[in-house]
């Protein structure tokens, strides 16, 4: 029988392409968790995910109340899609989400990125998406190390025990 060798995770590259509060936090929590475990971590933002590293938008992310079938009212009843479209509902739901996250000691986006950076994690923006949204280095948070191409991202994937996670 073939001997099964185990390779512990040494490096992880996380790609966040969405700008919903929960999608961004999924990437941030995974990145921060990897840093905490001593895993080399690189966090890459593209398309609407760029909102999470753009100074103007990063701390104003929303959770989508329309088109989210897992959405529930407080108490557990399904959340009607029509209700989700009313003005102010998305803001209210987002506020509630943020309150619950703060209870679990989840920091705001900028502070979260700083925490990841403090542990040696690196944050990058996608060049193509930045060009598309007309964003420059100075529009991004100071934790953003560089704006890179897909090729440069893949070049970072060298080494045994490297994984790419697309959130």
């Amino acid at each position, binding site marked *: 029988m073939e001997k099964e060798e185990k390779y512990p995770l040494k490096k992880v590259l996380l790609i966040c392409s969405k700008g919903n509060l929960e999608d961004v936090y999924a990437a941030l929590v995974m990145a*921060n968790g990897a840093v905490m475990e001593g895993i080399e971590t690189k966090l890459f933002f593209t398309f609407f995910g760029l909102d999470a590293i753009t100074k103007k938008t990063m701390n104003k992310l929303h959770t989508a109340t329309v088109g989210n079938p897992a959405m529930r009212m407080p108490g557990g009843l399904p959340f009607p899609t029509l209700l989700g479209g009313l003005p102010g509902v998305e803001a209210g739901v987002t506020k509630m989400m943020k309150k619950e996250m703060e209870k679990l000691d989840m920091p705001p986006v900028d502070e979260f990125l700083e*925490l990841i950076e*403090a542990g040696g994690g690196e944050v990058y923006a996608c060049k193509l998406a930045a060009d598309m949204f007309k964003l420059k280095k100075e529009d991004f948070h100071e934790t953003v190390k560089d704006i890179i191409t897909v090729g440069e991202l893949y070049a970072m994937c060298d080494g045994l025990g490297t994984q790419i996670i697309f959130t």
Partner: protein
Amino acid sequence: MTTKTIANIKVEVTEEGYLIDSSVWNKEIAKAIAKEEGIELTDKHFEVIEFIRKKVAAGEGLTIRGIGKSGVVDAKTFYQLFPGAPLKKATKIAGVSKPVSCM
């Protein structure tokens, strides 16, 4: 659970090396565990360790963010003091149980 002799004291530890009984902990044990982790403890390390022990004794959860805001160290220094996996290493050296938080 296994029995291990750390700093000439017989103690019970988990499979990962965390002390089962936090009360048997002393500075010599801390130094011995730290050495296994490749860390030479300084006064600053002990400040952090004492903060962690106090927090755990009070039944409060530990996060790197919380430690970074404690006023004892900032997050970056915490990572430098306990390189690699700071929360796991610092709690092990502090003789408390392994933290279960994702944060």
